[in-house]
């Protein structure tokens, strides 16, 4: 009785709290958040002042960030817009970070300590050109100034407020400015460039007021190619367009003189085409040929000398001024598993200021960039630290022959994610490092109880929080009952595979894929996607699960494909193959062989299907299902959707029994003058649907149309495919289709007039939710379409069921032409969207919630009940009981239902949901530049006790109850005794 009432009361109270939110002290229990900056493009050190030493970096992901030089942590970071590419960064006045971006048209200054933007200037010019940023210590009208060359105009900008002090246009049509130089200690600037590709031009300009002092020009017989390298403040080195003649041009005091030396004179063997590498070391420049990188020193007037010839894996840093008139630069070379870091003074190639050898993880690949900085040791000699960027985009700081810190910034550009189960816990094998004993367990709970009763001291609270966050339970390397512990396997753009533990987000292993490594036959490898290749269960438990990585050797869809198979537990790449065909589509088939390897069909650009794995067993399985394989392709550019089936074995010259020809079954051609495909969405293959029937008010039943072959397509008017505001509502429309991909039948078509993209859509069960922009209201809208199977609707008749005249047991098939009805409704939504997903649970019983990635890089959970086409302004009593919410014109945004709470997943790209074994819970992984992972229970954790459930309180209550029973028993006995004496 007591237990019954307890359970009743417990459920009663747990159902009273309707909001699925988080207390502030629960942050970090279920979730983790990691911040990255991406591949560093340029880095500037700030170590002069006392206080915290920093490094400012700009990255290929358009981020500007400052990192702590001691630990590599981010102090602050700003993500610029997608078109706002950073051209240059520098530090001015020792307190501002200056960034030049957007092709040299936006100049910004940020406060170094806190990242607050100080000023912003917009720089325009007469024409598009190279953009160059030059910080000087020049003082114009009492202001320190910056010299910026962009868009064909030279600007002097004040460091204090960003005001343009003077400007000078270089309007000459063919002029290509290559360098802007300020000789040290002078108050004039050289602008050096080519005109008409063969004319060398120098402009000497007064830095105080932009006045042109001198203009010289010399014509050369050869055309110049690309870059020039600055050898000294008045000498440049250049190559002619054939790449075989080196020119050194000096323009001392505006007078141009030059020497020409064929590259073959310097090298014994024929070097082939050479290119100049950008470097800024005085007196030395580098050229790169097919075979080697060659460092050349300029001695005096036009005399050149080769100082070193190295292989390609050599990276050189920019020059660093270490003391008055002395420059140093760093070289990084590979030797086996070590890298050699050498710092040399600029004037003397043969001596070394520093030579270190550091053991480097092979999985990081080659060094791509190096930046150096110096410090004064206690014995007044120079020490150097080097920041290196590796092939896998990671960033490392080297100092005194060791790696001080490293950042896995490759994770800022994840292409695809899949999950893998962890190994099963075996008896006798302790996997947790520290197993808690009973005493510690009890102590922990007593502490927790103290916390609930508000008796805890601040130290206790800290101890409780530490205990909760560092629970060894969640970061074990084995499977758990609830299915919370998994491996997230992520493929990054650098071609590296990472396995992250869902418990705490740590990297379990990482592997630089051989198949996605640059080579002679595969010059531009790119990763495409990840698939679960082998998920062993039942009879193949001894095998480790593995993932399939699909890539191709180039950006075009007809480039040859590459495959890799990677063990999910160890990260070993056990198979890597180069395909002889291209990869346009990868279709995981619902069949597995005896070792639980999943069959995959790879469709190439010529619409041939290739079966993998290439085993006789696979072909046997496949032959029996041959007639049931259908697929479709979407051609965005031409607006054609086509459906295919398999025909025969390939009729090519080579007998390949794993290759099949396809035949076209159907095609939908959209009129290209009025419709352009912008988005498609399909159901997740692994989604479980609990029931097909949906009980509605007044005991009625509706049958969901559930088909895994449903495709959602959104098209817009070609004019309206641009940005918001570029078209009027009258000339833009959005058309959505629901298509059966086996038969090509259009199940539903709907037009939204006056609406435009971008469209984000998610398809699940029998509904699709999509987000678009309504130009008439000038607001974003979200619409829902639910699709129901009408042919089963008459099964409601009891008599039919009794007689057996029903079609409930008939399979859902695309061959039968189902009668469908659709219901639809639209609502306003405040924010722009970056991604949309839906919660996924193991059996599909738990109600669904939409996970919306907003423009502010937050993830919002929105109950699907808000997007129910049966909502009306005044629902009837029966409908209210069913849970239908009265209709409102816009969807609510409840701050507590942001699952990212007060965090931002900067640069959000995609939200991935994975079902846990516990039905109530779904695992959510959001990635962009940042990574965020959490557990989410759409209808609360009804099937498990919450984390803050106090076992100690339960124990104490039971003890108190037992004690009370005994006390009352004694009391009652005593009373009875007294009664008898009376």
């Amino acid at each position: 009785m007591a237990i019954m009432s307890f359970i009743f009361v417990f459920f009663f109270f747990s159902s009273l709290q309707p909001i699925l939110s988080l207390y502030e002290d629960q942050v970090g229990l279920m979730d983790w958040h990691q911040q990255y900056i991406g591949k560093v493009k340029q880095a500037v050190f700030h170590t002069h002042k006392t206080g915290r030493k920093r490094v400012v970096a700009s990255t290929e992901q358009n981020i500007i960030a400052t990192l702590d030089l001691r630990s590599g942590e981010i102090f602050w970071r700003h993500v610029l817009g997608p078109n706002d590419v950073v051209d240059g960064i520098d530090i001015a006045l020792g307190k501002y970070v200056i960034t030049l971006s957007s092709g040299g048209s936006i100049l910004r200054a940020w406060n170094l300590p806190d990242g607050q933007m100080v000023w912003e200037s917009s720089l325009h010019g007469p024409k598009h050109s190279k953009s160059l940023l030059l910080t000087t210590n020049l003082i114009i009208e009492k202001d320190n100034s910056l010299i910026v060359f962009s868009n064909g105009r030279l600007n002097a900008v004040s460091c204090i407020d960003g005001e343009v002090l003077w400007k000078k246009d270089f309007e000459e049509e063919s002029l290509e400015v290559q360098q802007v130089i300020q000789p040290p200690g002078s108050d004039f600037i050289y602008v050096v460039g080519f005109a008409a590709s063969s004319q060398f031009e120098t402009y000497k300009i007064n830095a105080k007021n932009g006045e042109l002092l001198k203009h010289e020009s010399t014509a050369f017989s050869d055309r110049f190619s690309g870059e020039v390298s600055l050898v000294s403040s008045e000498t440049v080195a250049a190559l002619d367009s054939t790449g075989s003649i080196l020119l050194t041009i000096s323009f001392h005091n505006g007078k141009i003189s030059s020497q020409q030396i064929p590259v073959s004179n310097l090298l014994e063997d024929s070097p082939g085409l050479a290119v100049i590498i950008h470097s800024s070391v005085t007196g030395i420049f580098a050229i790169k040929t097919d075979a080697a990188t060659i460092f050349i020193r300029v001695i005096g007037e036009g005399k050149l000398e080769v100082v070193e010839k190295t292989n390609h894996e050599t990276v050189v840093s920019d020059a660093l001024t270490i003391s008055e008139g002395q420059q140093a630069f760093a070289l990084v070379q590979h030797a086996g598993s070590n890298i050699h870091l050498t710092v040399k003074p600029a004037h003397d190639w043969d001596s070394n200021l520093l030579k270190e050898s550091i053991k480097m993880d092979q999985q990081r690949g080659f060094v791509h960039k190096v930046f150096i900085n110096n410090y004064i040791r206690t014995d007044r000699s120079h020490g150097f630290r080097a920041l290196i960027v590796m092939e896998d985009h990671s960033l490392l700081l080297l100092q005194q022959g060791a790696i001080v810190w490293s950042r896995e910034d490759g994770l800022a550009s994840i292409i695809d994610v899949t999950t893998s189960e962890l190994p099963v816990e075996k008896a006798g094998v302790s996997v947790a490092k520290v197993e808690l004993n009973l005493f510690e367990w009890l102590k922990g709970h007593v502490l927790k109880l103290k916390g609930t009763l508000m008796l805890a001291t601040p130290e206790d609270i800290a101890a409780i929080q530490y205990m909760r966050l560092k629970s060894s339970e969640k970061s074990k390397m084995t499977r758990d009952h609830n299915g919370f512990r998994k491996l997230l396997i992520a493929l990054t753009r650098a071609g590296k595979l990472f396995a992250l533990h869902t418990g705490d987000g740590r990297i379990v292993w990482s592997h630089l894929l051989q198949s996605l490594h640059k080579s002679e036959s595969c010059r531009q490898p790119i990763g495409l996607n990840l698939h679960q290749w082998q998920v062993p269960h039942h009879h193949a438990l001894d095998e480790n699960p593995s993932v399939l990585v699909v890539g191709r050797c180039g950006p075009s869809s007809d480039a040859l494909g590459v495959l890799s198979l990677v063990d999910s537990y160890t990260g070993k790449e056990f198979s890597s193959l180069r395909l002889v065909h291209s990869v346009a589509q990868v279709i995981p088939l619902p069949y597995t062989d005896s070792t639980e390897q999943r069959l995959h069909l790879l469709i190439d650009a010529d619409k041939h299907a290739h079966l993998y794995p290439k085993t006789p067993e696979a072909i046997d399985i496949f032959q029996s299902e041959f007639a049931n394989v259908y697929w479709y392709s979407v051609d965005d550019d031409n607006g054609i959707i086509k459906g295919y089936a398999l025909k025969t074995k390939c009729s090519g010259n080579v007998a390949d029994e794993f290759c099949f020809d396809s035949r076209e079954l159907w095609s939908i051609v959209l009129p290209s003058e009025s419709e352009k495909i912008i988005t498609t969405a399909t159901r997740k293959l692994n989604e479980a649907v609990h029931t097909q029937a949906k009980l509605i008010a007044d005991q009625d039943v509706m049958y969901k149309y559930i088909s895994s072959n449903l495709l959602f397509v959104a098209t817009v008017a070609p004019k309206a495919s641009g940005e918001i505001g570029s078209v009027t509502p009258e000339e833009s429309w959005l058309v959505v289709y629901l298509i059966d991909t086996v038969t090509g039948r259009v199940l539903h078509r709907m037009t939204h007039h006056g609406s435009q993209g971008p469209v984000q859509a998610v398809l699940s069960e029998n509904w699709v939710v999509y987000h678009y922009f309504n130009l008439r209201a000038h607001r974003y809208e979200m619409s829902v379409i639910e699709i129901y199977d009408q042919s089963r609707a008459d099964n409601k008749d009891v008599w039919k069921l009794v007689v057996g005249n029903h079609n409930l047991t008939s399979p859902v098939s695309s061959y039968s032409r189902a009668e469908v009805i659709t219901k639809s409704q639209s609502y306003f939504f405040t924010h722009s969207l970056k991604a949309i997903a839906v919660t996924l649970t193991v059996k599909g019983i738990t109600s669904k919630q939409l996970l919306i990635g907003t423009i502010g890089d937050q993830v919002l959970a929105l109950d699907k009940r808000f997007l129910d086409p049966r909502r009306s302004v005044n629902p009837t009593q029966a409908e209210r009981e069913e849970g239908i919410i009265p209709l409102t014109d816009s969807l609510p945004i409840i701050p507590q239902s942001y699952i990212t709470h007060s965090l931002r997943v900067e640069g959000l790209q995609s939200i991935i949901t994975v079902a846990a074994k516990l039905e109530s819970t779904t695992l959510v992984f959001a990635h962009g530049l940042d990574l965020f992972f959490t557990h989410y229970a759409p209808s609360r954790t009804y099937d498990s006790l919450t984390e803050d459930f106090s076992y100690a309180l339960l124990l104490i209550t039971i003890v108190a109850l037992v004690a009370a029973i005994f006390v009352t028993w004694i009391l009652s006995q005593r009373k009875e005794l007294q009664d008898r004496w009376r």
Partner: protein
Amino acid sequence: MAAVTPLLLLLLLSSAPSFSSGSRNAYNINGRVKIPQGLGLGTKGYALPGRMSNVKVLLNGGQNITFLRPDGYFSFHNIPAGTHLIEVSAIGYFFSPVRVDVSARTPGKVQAALTENRKGLSELVLEPLREEQYYEIREPFSIMSLLKSPMGLMVGFMLAVAFLMPKLVENMDLEEMRRAQEEMRSQGVPSLSSLLPGGAMN
């Protein structure tokens, strides 16, 4: 949800007449966000999660992104004439998107309206609609909350039975009680004392 505190954050969007030296149909949109210091902070016992430097202003769904200057001003450069949408992303605050019309006929004339409540901004003054609380507030410890917990209710129920039931019995008529006791004895309903070990001794 917690009560909405008075909104003390002011966003002032001014459209300075803008021109461009580049192409003819490119304009600038200038605006301002103003956060009075000390207000909104600490009133609820927790620090404001977002800072001024983390506020982003986005044009047309992230096509252009700009940041705030220390005085709250921001500007978008080189914007073509037409209707645009400006969104403010600030952790801790809910901003309504703003519809901005940049007129090509009268250069520099900018009109703005909140899209959430369709309020036109004659002077281009925009207020965030509310503050956002991402966390549930833990109720401070109180006897009531302990009593309301399942365990508290159990203990309370037991105490009520133990102490109030005898009181009820006391108020009964003596005769009636005796009759009831006899009835119980005859029916053999097990009493509490007989259930317990040693209870059968009497």
